[in-house]
Each structure stands twice: as structure tokens, then as C-alpha cells.
């Protein structure tokens, strides 16, 4: 068990290091930090001072070391455009994105898993067929179009729901939440659904495919030949075996929700990290871009670790010493 976790941690560290390298390389080679920070009228001497102060004259290795050292402490430097520390910007925006992602993850899982299981078990029924058709439409709908159509119907034509922003938020000091007010929830509905649809359809299709695979295995045939009930075969034998491969992919998908939020946030003007990031790209604001990248990498690694531990508790084959 410890060995297993240890190996995973080592892999996670490797991933983080690679991501840090990319983020650092962006700093180094895209644009010139000095001209980004300095104004038009800064003298050459002042520029050289700034260069020295930023440590840009040190060796690349030293700079990379410093970059990582700072990043671990949450220091990503100053935004080129907004002239405020990136860490403050992120801290301000992070709660909005996390709440949005969690709510849509819940929607995707709660709706997606039962639908996937149903379409696999009753794959010839008309309901399962219409679920499959719906899921095909689901993966064919670009996220931003779902948002636009929702806005058109519920925002513009029916005027039931707000079309932008988070609504009223409550400041808890270290966290701002929209989940404590009615208007916060109302604002959440459309963005959360928009973000959930694509993941949900993926989950439905994935679970269906894996479960059909499992239902064809010998041990399911043997279970049937032993006279076990269909209920037990479907749920305690087939479903559990389906979850083993599915859990990794779902974990990854949920992790990617935070990044997918970029699109939703820009459709609904949701004040989260995604919106920050997309603006940063437009302005080539490298510190924000690299900080965002590192944060996403970290969330991914974290989720992956959780998934691995889950995996471990489900599959006994991993538990023996090999």
C-alpha cells in the first residue's frame, strides 16, 4: 500500500515538475518581462536595474529553482497588465470556479451514472435508445452553444434566469460563496448545466461501453449459469467490475471541469479563473497564464491521487505484493 502510494506520489511530482517547466519556459521565452513591466519612458539603465532586480541575469537553472521555490509558496509575480500580485487575483477568482465545477460535477455524476447503467442493461429498450441519441447530440453540442441557447430561451425570451455574473455572494473572509443566497443559486443554474452536459454525456457513453464489455465476460455467463438473480448479476457483479476502469476516466473528466469552465465562464461572464485566464491570453499576460497552468496541474494531480486510492480499495488485484 505504502509502496503503491509512494510510486504514485513520485509520478505526481514528475507531472508537476513538467508542468512547472512549461510554465517557466513561457516566462523565459514568450515576450520580455522587462518591457512588459517597464513603461515606455523607462531608461536603459533603469531597465537594466529592473532586469537585475528580477534576477533575469542569473543562470537559467537558478531562475528555475527560484521559480519553483516561489511557486510552492504561492508566489507567481505580478500581472503584467493589472499590476497586482497574481496570487491575489487567483485567490479572489478561485471560489467562483470551484463552486461552479463542483455543482456541475455533481449534476454530471448523479444524472450520468444511472443513465449509463440503464442504457447498458436495457440496451434495446426505447428509453435506452433515446438516451443514446440524446447523448450523441450532447457530445455534438459545443459547450458555448449550449450556453447561448440557454441564455436565449431562459434569459432573453422567458426572462426567468439571470444571464451573467454570480448573483449575490456572501463573503466569509477567506472564501466568497454564492451558495447561500437565492440569487446565487439562480445564477448558478444555467452555467452549471452548461458545464455539466458534455461531461454527463461522456459518462453515459463510457459507462455503457464498459458495462457492455463486462456483461460479455465469462464470469457473468458463469454467474447466470449458476442461477444468480439478474439483479445481483447486474449490480453486485457487473457494475462493480465496470467501475474499476471507469473510475479513472471519470476522475480525469471531473478534474478537467475546472479547465472547461473557461468556456462557460466567458459565455456567462462568470467571475472565475477561466475568465481571468482567457483575458490573460488575449493580453499575453504570462504570469497569470503560468500560475493558472500550475494550479490546474495541481488540482489534476490531487484528483488523480484520490482516484488511485479509490481504485486501490475496489480492486483486490492491486493489493497483493507483486
Amino acid at each position: 500500500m505504502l509502496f503503491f502510494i509512494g510510486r504514485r506520489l513520485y509520478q505526481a511530482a514528475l507531472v508537476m515538475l513538467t508542468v512547472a517547466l512549461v510554465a517557466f519556459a513561457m516566462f523565459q521565452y514568450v515576450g520580455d518581462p522587462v518591457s512588459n513591466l517597464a513603461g515606455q519612458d523607462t531608461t536603459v539603465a533603469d531597465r537594466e536595474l529592473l532586469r537585475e532586480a528580477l534576477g533575469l541575469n542569473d543562470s537559467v537553472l537558478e531562475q528555475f529553482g527560484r521559480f519553483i521555490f516561489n511557486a510552492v509558496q504561492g508566489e507567481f509575480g505580478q500581472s503584467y497588465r493589472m499590476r497586482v500580485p497574481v496570487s491575489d487575483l487567483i485567490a479572489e477568482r478561485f471560489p467562483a470556479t470551484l463552486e461552479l465545477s463542483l455543482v456541475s460535477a455533481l449534476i454530471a455524476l448523479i444524472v450520468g451514472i444511472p443513465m449509463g447503467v440503464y442504457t447498458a442493461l436495457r440496451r434495446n429498450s426505447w428509453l435506452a435508445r433515446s438516451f443514446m441519441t440524446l447523448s450523441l447530440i450532447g457530445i455534438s453540442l459545443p459547450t458555448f452553444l449550449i450556453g447561448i441557447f440557454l441564455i436565449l430561451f431562459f434569459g432573453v425570451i422567458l426572462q426567468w434566469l439571470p444571464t451573467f455574473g454570480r448573483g449575490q455572494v456572501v463573503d466569509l473572509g477567506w472564501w466568497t460563496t454564492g451558495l447561500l443566497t437565492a440569487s446565487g443559486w439562480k445564477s448558478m443554474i444555467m452555467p452549471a448545466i452548461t458545464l455539466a452536459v458534455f461531461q454527463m454525456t461522456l459518462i453515459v457513453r463510457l459507462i455503457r461501453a464498459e458495462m457492455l464489455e463486462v456483461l460479455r465476460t465469462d464470469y457473468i455467463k458463469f454467474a447466470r449459469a449458476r442461477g444468480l438473480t439478474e439483479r445481483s448479476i447486474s449490480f453486485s457483479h457487473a457494475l462493480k467490475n465496470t467501475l474499476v476502469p471507469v473510475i479513472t476516466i471519470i476522475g480525469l473528466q471531473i478534474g478537467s471541469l475546472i479547465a472547461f469552465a473557461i468556456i462557460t465562464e466567458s459565455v456567462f461572464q462568470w467571475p472565475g479563473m477561466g475568465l481571468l485566464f482567457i483575458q490573460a491570453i488575449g493580453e499575453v499576460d504570462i504570469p497569470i497564464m503560468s500560475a493558472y497552468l500550475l494550479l490546474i496541474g495541481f488540482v489534476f494531480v490531487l484528483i488523480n491521487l484520490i482516484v488511485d486510492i479509490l481504485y486501490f480499495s475496489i480492486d483486490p488485484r492491486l493489493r497483493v505484493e507483486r
Partner: protein
Amino acid sequence: MIDSLRRFFAGDLWWSFRSSPIVVLAAMTTVSMVFASVFANFVAPYDIFDLTQFNLMDGLKPPFWMERGEIGFLLGTDDQGRDVLSTILYGSRVSLTVGFFSVIFAMLIGIFVGLVAGYSGGWIDAVLMRIADVQLSFPAILIALLVDGIISGLLPDQAQGELAIYVLIAAISLSFWVQYARTVRSSTMVERTKEYVQAAQVIGLPKPLILFRHILPNVMGPVLVIATIQLALAIITEATLSFLGVGVPPTSPSLGTLIRVGNDYLFSGEWWITVFPGLALVILVLAVNILGDWLRDALNPKLR
């Protein structure tokens, strides 16, 4: 040639195609949309790049069946008086071009990396697959955004507009190759141990010949399936990037750009500028997805 055609039409693939009306419909839709956009110059009612053909006075006209609508502008006009149907046809051309070439490049990179990794094994495989793993940790759209952002940052401002399409193709193919690489690698590892490969080794064939003459044709099946599904995804990705404002500029609009531009008019009631390009996008992607889905099931021997 004729012989293999006859074989194809007698085969299971053609039969399963013909026996599903939805798949036939999807194929017809795809083919006609590709045709219409490739020949947009001849098919479209107006040339949207010809400034003499549109007039600001015609701006924001609704579709023909609505009040104020004109039969000359079937699906209405945009703010600059351009015919929406024509912009859709020209826009699909950009979307399809980007999608098609991104998939081709992603496929080439992915197949090469996958074959090499799967056949050599050892540290080459380990390094290549670690890179793939790290990249897979991030959604393709984010990678594409990053690559797009970085390349744009490196390019001089005035070149950005002209090169936007190439940047997009590079960004999308660099974010899509991993899928192919992983699939090709795992199939290669399966094929590598099969006895026909060992037989080729015993004959004395050199490695590259074994890889490309023997293994490659045998791993192409799943690659084709992914390519179809990825074509749909690439079109969506292009549209998304353009919608987010980092794709192709409004001067040579793609479907995504059209939707982005039209989005501004959503609240003032000119919904057709957004909705029709949006529908065109959905229909195109749906048709390609249906084909991909069918191809996957038809080529999967376990489902027969």
C-alpha cells in the same frame, strides 16, 4: 481494383451502412455540407468577401418568413448587411479546413510516436508516454488555448491575422495527437507479439519495414475511428477557440467567429445571426459523430 470494390459492396461494412437510415442520412448531410462549403463560391448566393455585394442598408434583416424579411436573404443578414446563409457556407469552409488538417497532422504525429513507442519499448516508450500522460492531464481545449496563446505571443502583431488559421491548425493538432499515440502504441504492443511479426523477423526484414509494412496496416482500424470522432471534436474546438476570440479573425470568419459576432446581438433580439451558424455547426458535428459512432461499432468484431 474492381475486384476489391465488389468485395467492399458485398461486405459487412457496406451492409451495416445501408441498413441504418440514420447513418445514411448523416453521410449524405456530411457530404453535402462539405460539398457546399468547398464550392461556396458557386453555391452561396453572395460572395461575402466582395464588398460591392452587400450594403449596410440591408443590415440586421430577419429571415424571410418574418416581418421585414426578404426572400433575397433567406436566413436574414448580419449587422453589416451580409447574407447569413452565405456567411455560413463560407464559414463552414474555414471550420472544415481547420478541422480536417488538424486531424491529419495530429494523426501523423500520433501514429509515428505510437508506432515507435510501442515497438521499441524501454526508455523511449517511457519518455514518450510520460509526455503523453502529462498532456492528457489537461483538456485538449486548454492545451490548444495555451499553444495558440504562446504562438501568438511569439508572432509579430501584424502577422497574427494572416497566420491565424495555421496557428489554429498547429494548436489543435498539438493538443490532439496524444489520443492517436496512445491507441497506436497499445495496438502496436499487441501486434508486436503476434506471430506474423515474428515471422517477418525470422525472414530477416529490418525494423522500419516491419513497422510500416506489417504493423501499420493492422493498427489503422481504430485510428480511422478516432479520426472521425476527432474531426467532430476538432471542428468544435476550432469553433470554441474562435468564439473565445483567439481563433480566426472576423475578416475570414469561421462558424465559431460568426457565433461570437452574433452573440452581441442576442439581447437586442437579432437571434438569427447566432442561431443559424450555431445550428449549422451542430448539424455538421452531429452528422460526423453519427458516422464515427457507426464506424466504431461496425469495425468492432465483438459487437457483431
